[in-house]
């Protein structure tokens, strides 16, 4: 996935042009927000995750920590995926003391149909581990190759394939039970 404009903007940010970062946000926020929402299963978490991810990306660019080995887009996907995976783990680990907390409060500005579909997707993928879920979403939903998925998740290509097989098997097993 070539992103010459993003590379240019990233170089400008690295040279101290703060406003160039707005271009990166404008160009990528839709795709990255959907990725964060699909991985975390919550529109509320998605926005927080994405905001944190952008701040991390900006810091890395300013401190010259982006080495340019991968494309800017893949690199941003990596930051957002890691942040969303952490948020999902935190959400799963959080004990639900109040029944009202079980259902996260949703932003009313978000399209209700999309929100409902996201809830359904979250429910459908609920049997999968965070790792299996992220591989399935990146490979089958976002359309990344095995190599790119491995690069985004920071694991081997073999691990990606293995998680994908397990994810599909778990979905099959769940279907058999229902």
């Amino acid at each position, binding site marked *: 996935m070539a992103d010459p404009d993003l590379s240019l903007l990233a170089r400008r940010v690295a040279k101290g042009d703060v406003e160039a970062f707005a271009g990166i946000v404008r160009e990528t*926020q839709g795709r990255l927000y959907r990725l964060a929402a699909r991985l975390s299963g919550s529109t509320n978490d998605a926005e927080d995750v994405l905001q944190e991810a952008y701040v991390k990306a900006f810091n890395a660019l300013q401190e010259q920590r982006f080495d340019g080995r991968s494309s800017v887009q893949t690199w941003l996907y990596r930051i957002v995926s890691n942040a969303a995976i952490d948020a999902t783990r935190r959400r799963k680990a959080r004990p639900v003391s109040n029944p009202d907390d079980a259902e996260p409060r949703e932003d009313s500005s978000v399209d209700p149909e999309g929100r409902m579909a*996201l809830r359904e997707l979250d429910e459908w993928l609920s049997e999968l581990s965070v790792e299996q879920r992220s591989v399935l979403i990146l490979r089958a939903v976002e359309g990344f190759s095995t190599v790119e998925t491995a690069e985004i998740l920071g694991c081997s290509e073999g691990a990606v394939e293995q998680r994908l097989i397990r994810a599909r098997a778990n979905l099959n097993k769940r279907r058999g039970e229902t």
Partner: protein
Amino acid sequence: MNGDEDLQQLEALTRATQSLAPSPGFEARVMTRIRARVERESWRSRGILLGCFAAAAAAAIWVAQLEQRQVDTDALTLFDSMELTQ
């Protein structure tokens, strides 16, 4: 249902979530946070610079005072030796 149907359902749910987008003003909120961070960093850098300048000035004053004291001592020694000679 088989694996293909699983993928079809996944695709259908994915399409349905395609309308999701950040709430209005998201980009502005991100940029406000980033500008605030840059501003904070800039003040920190200025603070460090000011601290270094103050330390350098103090060191310069101390060295100057030290040199002045040395000159005074030398002058006094010279004066004493002249008095003794006379």
